[in-house]
């Protein structure tokens, strides 16, 4: 039997179909958690809370229009929730306004040893730190493009920006990423 599309499943969910909802959540739980995990800087409990919050928004009545592509809509909700979270007064107070990205870095003052660098590369710490140094607008498009595999059009629909803006942000983002990322030391494959 042909697998139902996200849009068909979502229409069924709106009619209270539990099976369709289970299928939709199972399909998107993993990629959505990955996206939010990277967007909030490797904080898994926070990412899990945001996944739950995103899906609760999905279930709110009259929010989804059946003609609309589901995936960009889902990631738009997730992205907006993260934005709201970091804008909230409590978080700003905790992280001090403007220092949020610095907090994400967890940078250490001292020069890491070769072993520490190898372990960090293995766990993707350098990449995480490089992405955290980018401004949010560039980080989001890079995550959607290279981790979620979104097309340019899907990114435009998710972020409600023109296609040209998507391209320019990706271009700037990738160039900045390259300038931030240090090459992997030899012998650390």
């Amino acid at each position, binding site marked *: 039997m042909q697998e139902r599309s996200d849009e068909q499943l979502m229409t069924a969910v709106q*009619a209270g179909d539990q099976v369709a909802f289970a299928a939709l959540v199972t399909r998107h739980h993993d990629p959505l958690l990955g996206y939010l995990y990277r967007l909030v800087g490797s904080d898994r409990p926070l990412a899990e809370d945001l996944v739950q919050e995103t899906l609760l928004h999905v279930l709110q009545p009259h929010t989804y229009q059946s003609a609309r592509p589901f995936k960009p809509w889902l990631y738009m909700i997730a992205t907006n929730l993260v934005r709201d979270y970091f804008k909230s007064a409590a978080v700003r107070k905790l992280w001090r306004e403007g220092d949020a990205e610095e907090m994400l870095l967890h940078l250490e003052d001292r020069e890491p040893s070769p072993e520490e660098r190898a372990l960090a590369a293995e766990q993707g710490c350098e*990449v995480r730190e490089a992405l955290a140094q980018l401004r949010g607008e560039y980080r989001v498009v890079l995550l959607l493009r*290279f981790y979620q595999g979104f097309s340019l059009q899907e990114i435009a629909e998710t972020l409600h920006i023109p296609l040209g803006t998507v391209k320019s942000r990706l271009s700037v983002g*990738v160039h900045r990423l*390259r300038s931030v*990322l240090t090459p992997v030391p030899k012998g650390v494959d």
Partner: protein
Amino acid sequence: MPHPQSSWPFERPEQLTDALLEQGATPEECANLLPAVRRLSEWQAPHPTPADTRRLLAVLSTALPAFSPVRQAIREHRQHRISFLLATARAQVSLFGLGFWLVSALVTLLGAVVVLGRVIEDQDVVLRAGGPLLAYLGTIVAFRGRGARVLELELVCLPSPLQLALARLVIVLGYDVGLSLALSLLLWAGGTGQVLALMLAWFTPLLLVAGLALLLSLRLSVQAAASLAYGSWLVFLAISTISNLQARAGAPALIVLPGCLGLVLLAIALLRMHTNMHRLLPYPERVRTFLGADS
């Protein structure tokens, strides 16, 4: 805690190059940027286990919009409205006893005999008085007022009460239209002039009385509603005949006016039936009494 390898959407290296080219990078830039972009795959994200997904579903399922199985079935059937309406109407035909079919046909036949035999000079009046009699009969047979207390039974049926009312209207009006066509054939075969005008004189008051009776049946017992609607029409007809108003009402535009008014009344009655449904339910009162909220 080390996380399992996360999925990386670019399985082949050239896919990454294509992605960079698509977003506007030149081939030279691609070669320059690729090493950095490839390194993105180093940052792995956690994967939820099936147990994680089950836990999430358990939390979210409480927020899932819930519809009763009956309501879901009604929603599904709404997708095939016309066929479902006709199927419901077919099932409802058994409600109408033989008397309804025969008496309606007899009334129509009598109307034809009176007109063709020129028993009465004013043929219009005969038809205007006889047509609504079918509506009176149809209302009494097809619709039961709220006093009949069958709403609970209708609510557990697959078609909603509104769908049932529509189906019965289809039967009654469909049969009346059929009889009207038969009457027009008889009049035409009998050599009567102005068949269309006579047919309108028969059918438009029928629609008016049917609409008025259905609307009144939402407030009164069905017998009272049908009698009041038909009685009002007869009174109006008598007054208009005596006061010679009928001659002025004979204009083509005014002939169809009762029919249009009847259709409007039918639409209002059906809409009110739909919106007042929750008020007609016995459930809230019963629950309130059970919970002792009145005390």
